[in-house]
């Protein structure tokens, strides 16, 4: 299984603050992806970072990848109430079929 494990399980912040969530995985990867899920909806892809990349930005999102520690972090800057959702990571392992599996995610609540 290529399951990523997200941490913390829950995060509650005020609008305007930054939110950081982490993902750990177990095997060598080709890439790592972050997804977001609004309650009862499908997962939406946020950002993909390849194993030879260390940092990637997309708007207010910043993702880092540390392959030596087998971990990644997702930073949402200047959070908004609309960022309230669950966030998941998934990995594409080296030499394996891509069967992304999702952990329990980080539930982010941004208070207006």
């Amino acid at each position, binding site marked *: 299984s290529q399951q990523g494990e997200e941490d913390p399980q829950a995060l509650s912040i005020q609008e305007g603050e930054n939110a950081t969530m982490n993902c750990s995985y177990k095997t060598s990867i080709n890439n790592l*992806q972050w997804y977001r899920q609004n309650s*009862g*909806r*499908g997962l939406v*892809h946020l950002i*993909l970072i390849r194993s030879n990349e260390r940092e990637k930005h997309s708007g207010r999102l910043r993702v880092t990848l540390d392959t030596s520690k087998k971990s990644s972090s997702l930073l949402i800057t200047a959070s908004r109430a609309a960022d309230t959702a669950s966030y998941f990571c998934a990995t594409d392992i080296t030499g394996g079929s*891509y*069967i992304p599996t999702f952990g329990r995610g980080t539930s982010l609540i941004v208070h207006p």
Partner: protein
Amino acid sequence: EPEVTQTPSHQVTQMGQEVILRCVPISNHLYFYWYRQILGQKVEFLVSFYNNEISEKSEIFDDQFSVERPDGSNFTLKIRSTKLEDSAMYFCASRRTGEKLFFGSGTQLSVL
């Protein structure tokens, strides 16, 4: 951006009945997946499909489940004899090799 479409959005059925959930993946994608999410729980992998056959399946995907790609566009999940515990949101997803997953908005299945 292209979309994965799923029908129906809601399905109510009696225990023991058969249901077919339908998905239209993105046209140039090669890999197709079904996931499910029981209310309040994590998104669980069911099955992946590539080159017109199942490439991998989870232990959840037992004999009551089957998948087909009956034509060049549709991808279906059949549950032969539904149980109460099959009540969940079912998500279809597709992707190109090594790229991000595109999820549909899901079918909410309620088994009474």
